[in-house]
Each structure stands twice: as C-alpha cells, then as structure tokens.
C-alpha cells in the first residue's frame, strides 16, 4: 500500500491550495455563506483552469482519468478552505453514481458537461424518505420527497434512487422538475435542500443492481467526506497552534501551558492517524476494491469524531474570540458537526464497522 503522496500528487496539492487561498479566502466564504452559498465563478475556474471537477472521470468522457487518491487530495484542500462549490454533490456523489451504473448513454450525456463545470448534478438517495417511481403513458414519473439533498438548490440535474414496482432504480431528472425548498442549515457553508416531486418526468438509468451502486457510492462518499474533514482538521490545528504562540496570558504565551499544549498535541496525534487512514482508504478505492467497504467504515469511524473534537477544541483554545461570529473557528465547528452526521452518526458508523468485521 502506498501512504505517501508522489511528486505529482504533492504538486496537485500545492497548486490547489494556492489557488483556493487566492480565490476562496475566508472573507469570500463568509460573503457567500450570507448569500446563496455558491461561488459560480470559482466553480467554473476549478473546472476549466484546474480540471478538478472531472478528476476521476475517464479521459474519453472529458475528465482527467486520475484516481481517488488525487480526488482525496483535492477534497482535503476544499475542506481546509471551506470552498463554497458543489464538488461533493457533482464531482463525488453524482459522478460516482454515473460511473457505477450501467448506462453508457447517460454517462456520455452528462459526465463531460459535469467535468467541464457546465452542469451541476446532485444525488437524492436518503433512505429515510425514498420517492416512488411509476410509469404513466409509457414514461416514468417521480412522486415524493427527497430530504436534505446536498447542493440540491443549484442542481441542474438530479439523480434519484427511487422505489419502483420491483425494488429500486436510479433515475435522472431535470432540476427544474423538482420543487426546491432550501433549508436553514447548521452549517451555512453547506446548503441542503428538500426536493419535492409531483409527477416529475424522469428517465430510468440502466443499472442491473441499483443497491450495489448505492453501497459503492456510499463508501466512496465516506472516503471523500473524510478527506474533506481531514483538511478542515488540519486547518483548525494550524490556526490554533499559531494563536497559542502569540496569545499571552499571565505573562506567557498560552501555548507554553500544558493545559493548552497537551490538547494541541492530542489534536495533532489524532490528525496524523486520521491522515494515514484517509490515504489508506483513498488508495484502497483505487487499488483494492474488495477492501473498500472496510476501509470506508474505518476512516469514517476515525475521522468524523476526531474532526469535531478538533473543531470544538479550536473554539475553546481561542477563548472568547473563538466564540465570536467574526472569527473563522465557528465555520469549521459547524462544518465538522454537519459532516459528522451527513452519512450516519458515529455510533451507526461503528456499528457498520462491527458488521463488516463480523463481530
């Protein structure tokens, strides 16, 4: 297994980091968080100038044919910057659904446009509320509600796992055919939207085993989200360690007190281990597909709670300033809590890991 980045991957990382520092600085993220939460210009440039949107899309479909290790590197940087772009929805979830199903026509139709940034796609796959698909006059329509769809508010295309007469199927429909109810969110930098379908015209995507697609997409999403969380965690550690060096109380920098120093050391220790696990999981997604479910469960169990703990400690160690709206610490705190719960709670994740281990 390969846990260290090669030269090219390191270069990818530094170019994305530099680009985001320039084009998605904290003020910009805040502005957008107060607005519609989406930076169309940044998305366009990430797609066209850096070619990141189609990272795992094969070259013949307009992507760059790279792997999950590269995608994880990009997600780390996006998480570090809290970049307000629909990467998770389009370049992860929707891309993975399309690559997972058996529908060459849909792939050829959608992936090039997604890779070039023209098309934003979102995925509705919440298992709590599953829309129903029925055939009327020879055409499929969807009814029901999809909850908390990531980037659902701005999606041009929505991929939906819906109930059919025989199990489930994957469908595509145009964003405008769903009634969109943007939700107020714990995390202002990650928009979630309810989509209501009332006889919405949809197209069935060819997929022999829709649930298997869902599982693989879920595992890949866990890896991707963990990478994003790792980036956020690295950022709060950096920010907090810097602060601990300059903030003086009782005549000493607070970082010289063990009560502070040791908490930062624990944060570092958790980050290092999470980092190794994320590299492993991304490597597994590329090279060792049989191990992916286990690696995905592992990385989620490790990273989600550690990220939240780090974000909460960051607020604590900044003291009053950290609790202030103007400070960035709360943005990471809110993102961390949202990410911790987005794909299942920590105890559900541990139960899933236990299942996979056949305990």
């Amino acid at each position, binding site marked *: *297994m*390969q*846990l*260290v980045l090669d030269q090219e991957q390191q270069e990818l990382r530094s170019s994305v980091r530099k680009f985001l520092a320039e084009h998605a600085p904290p003020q910009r993220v805040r502005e957008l968080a107060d607005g519609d939460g989406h930076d169309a210009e940044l998305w366009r440039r990430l797609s066209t100038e850096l070619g990141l949107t189609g990272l795992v899309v094969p070259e013949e479909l307009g992507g760059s044919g790279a792997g999950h290790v590269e995608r994880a590197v990009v997600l780390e940087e996006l998480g570090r910057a809290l970049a307000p772009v629909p990467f998770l929805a389009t370049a992860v979830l929707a891309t993975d659904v399309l690559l997972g199903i058996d529908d060459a026509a849909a792939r050829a139709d959608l992936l090039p446009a997604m890779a070039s940034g023209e098309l934003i796609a979102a995925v509705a796959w919440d298992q709590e509320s599953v829309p129903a698909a029925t055939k009327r006059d020879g055409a499929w329509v969807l009814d029901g509600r999809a909850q908390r769809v990531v980037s659902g508010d701005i999606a041009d295309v929505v991929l939906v796992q819906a109930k059919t007469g025989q199990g489930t199927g994957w469908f595509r429909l145009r964003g405008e055919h769903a009634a969109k109810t943007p939700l107020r969110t714990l995390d202002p930098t990650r928009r979630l939207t309810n989509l209501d379908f009332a006889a919405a015209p949809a197209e069935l995507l060819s997929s022999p085993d829709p649930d298997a697609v869902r599982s693989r997409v879920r595992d890949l999403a866990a890896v991707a989200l963990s990478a994003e969380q790792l980036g956020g965690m690295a950022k709060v*550690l950096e920010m907090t*360690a810097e602060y*601990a*060096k300059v903030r003086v109380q009782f005549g*000493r*920098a607070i*970082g*010289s007190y*063990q009560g*502070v*120093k*040791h908490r*930062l*050391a*624990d944060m*570092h*220790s958790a980050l*290092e*281990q*999470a*980092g*190794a*696990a994320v*590299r*492993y999981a991304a490597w597994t997604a590329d*090279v*060792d*597909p*049989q*191990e992916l479910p286990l690696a995905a469960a*592992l990385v989620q*169990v*490790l990273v989600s709670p550690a990220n939240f703990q780090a974000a909460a400690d960051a607020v604590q160690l900044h003291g009053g300033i950290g609790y202030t709206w103007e400070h960035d610490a709360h943005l990471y705190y809110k993102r961390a809590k949202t990410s911790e719960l987005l794909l299942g709670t920590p*105890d559900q994740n*541990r*139960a899933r*890991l*236990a299942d996979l*281990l056949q*305990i």
Partner: protein
Amino acid sequence: MSAPEPRSRVPRNRTSGERDAARPREAAEREIDSERDHHRESRSGTAFRAGVRDFLARNAPEPLGELEPAEQLRAAKRFQAAAYDAGLIGITWPAEYGGQGLTAAEQQDYDEEAAHYDLPGSPFMVGMGMCGPTLLDLGSHEQKARYVPPLLRGDEIWCQLFSEPGAGSDVASLQTRAVRDGDSWVINGQKVWTSGAQFSDFGALLARTDPDVPKHRGITMFIVDMRSPGVTVRPLRDMTGRAPFNEVYFDDVRIPADAVIGEVGGGWLAAVTMLGHERVSIGGSVRRGGDPLAYDNLVELARARDRAGDPVVRDRLAGIYARERALALFNTKLRQEAEAGSPPGARGSVAKLAGAELLWQAVETAGLIAGPALTSWEDGDAAAEEMAIAINATPASSIAGGSNQVQRNIIGERILGLPKEPQVDRDVPFRELKVGTQRRP
C-alpha cells in the same frame, strides 16, 4: 523501553487473507484485482514473502509464557539466531554491518507475516530498536563492525542505561559520573528501571563527564560491558509482580577510551538520537503478537463470554479496531516517508502516545466485556492470568520511554513549535543545580 509484552496463548490466526477469501468476488472487480496483485508483487516481492511464511511456519516457537525466564531467553535466542541466519533480521539494515540491505517493503512483508505469530522478540527490542540504530547513526566504523552483527543475531543483548532515581523524564539531570583516567574512563553511580539488564551483555550508558557546564552539555554516551568488574545488577519487581527491570550500580567500573559513542560531551545529542529511535520502535511495536488486549483477542473474549452481540460491546470493539488500524497505518506511513527521505523525527512521539492510550481503551473494553469475571479466576486458568498481567502492565506504556505528558510536550514543542516551558536550569552549571531528590556530585 516498552512495557514487557504480556503473552497470550491465543494464536492470531484470523488473517485478512482469509477474510478476503471468504468474500464473493464481483466479476467486474476481477480485472482491477489482478492489476492490484501485480502491483503488489512488483513492489514487495512475493518470493521474499513466501520465504518468510515458510520460515515462520517451520521455526516460530510456541508462545513461551509457561517457561521459566532462563528457558524463555534461550528459546528466544535460538529463534533470533535462526531468523538471522535465514536473512530475516535487520532486513533494512546495511549489509556492511550484518544487515540484509533490503527495503521497507520487505520489512513490511516480514511484519505482516510475523503478526500472525507470537514471536519472542522482547529481549532484543532495546538493542534492535534503540541501541543498534544509534550506533549506526553515531558509532565509529569499528564500533559498528564489532557490535552490530552479534546484536542482530541475538548473540549479544543490549540494555539502555539512562534513567536514574533523580533523573527520569529529566534525563539530562543524571548524576552517574565518568572520569577520565589514562586510557580508561572510570564510572560511578546508579541507574534504575533498566529493562533486561539481568541478561544483557552490553549497555548504552549516559554519564556526566563535565559537571562544570550546564546539564545538557556535560554528558557522554558510552558502551559498557555489563560483565565488567564493579557492575552490580539488582532485580526490581514491577507492579505485575515480575522483575523485568533492574537497578544497576557502577562502582569504579573501568571502560576503555574507545567506548565513547559519538563525541565526549556530545551525549545529549546521542541521547536524543536514541530516544527518537525508542519512540518510533515502541510506537511501532505496540499491540502486536499475542497481547490479550489486542483487538483480535478482545473479540475472542467477547465471543467466549457471549457478549459479542451486545451493541455497546460491539461499539467499543469497533472503536478499538479503528484505533489499532490507524496506529498501524500511521507507522507504515512513517516508514514509507523515512524511505522516501524524511525521517520521522519527533513524530515517533505520536505513535508512542497513541499506542499507550489505545491500551487504556482496551483495558476499559476488557472490563466491559468480562465484568466481575476479570477480577478473579481459578488457579491454572492461563488466559485469565495473562489478561490480568496485561491489565496490570498497562501503566508501563504511559511511563516507559518517556511518559505521556513528556510525549505531549515533545509534540507540542518540536512538531507544533509551541513555546517551551520556562526553564530554570538550562544555563546553570550542573554543579550548582539541585537535582531531583538526590545528593550533589
């Protein structure tokens, strides 16, 4: 050094390979799969791995827990020598000094295969993990050529003579003196908690050679022959009731001038070098083999006690598994980084700290699984006995090799660059310091 490894008689036989085989393979994945095998093969050499597997199948001794200490040591030495002769010890060490000159990939192959056994490695840990690497870093060519090959083969065992009654975490406060006398150095003083001194042939000794300079500057590291006249080793019992460590007294012990490792007065650099290796080796070795507190054995315990279905037990076990894997992956990553040219430095402290904390979680989980049954057992119940020893040995890993607090200081100061604690003694000549609770030199 690390806690003495408690040994379990439960073999670690559930390999991930077997788990793989039990799973149905998706047809679509086959292609990628064969690519992966190819990938692995080209990187790590299946021939080497097959050799390891074959060697271990033939030579790995039964766990030694039941044997008398002296017999355990003989069996451990037999195994070490056989493994060395088969080319499996010192895999990444330079061939010039008796190693195999191979890469981290082969080491990884060996480690993965060895993890299925409960191999008797602990008598060699200080030598292999700490003294040997320090000799390679700082020793003269003659020292390396003389000491490294027999160290690897297990013919000569090493111990680390750092800690003293007044100088544990604060190693640089040590008071053992070395005074130059013609062609020799004469050593006087006392060391404590010296693991394995009772069966060691050599020790890496830190002694004060100049009390007139500040404490970090007046120290020198020496190679000392533990059979020299004037060396007295007295066993110390630890809280498990066993005596794996010792007090060591030096009374006018003469050692030759060429026994200095590195520079005279350069002992602090040598100490820091060795402590760095120590953290990496302890961190990397935690929770292998037959530790009753390892994940696999806790699962066995849960099954045996019919507790595996309890959601809370499952939750904790999954948590232990995750941390154990995270630590193993982190260690692998450190090794790969080292091979790519960036040595771990202070990051070994992360592994050391994580390993110690993992054990505490495992102790808690063992209690959750077994309940009051953990408190008492009938005579002759070896598994219960070993679990009890493991629980009683757990504090060792949070103290030995630098306490958890000290590791956190290292991470905070050397990795994160946080300001140091105020230091009152950094610039004061050692002679003027009040050290620990001890007499002045």
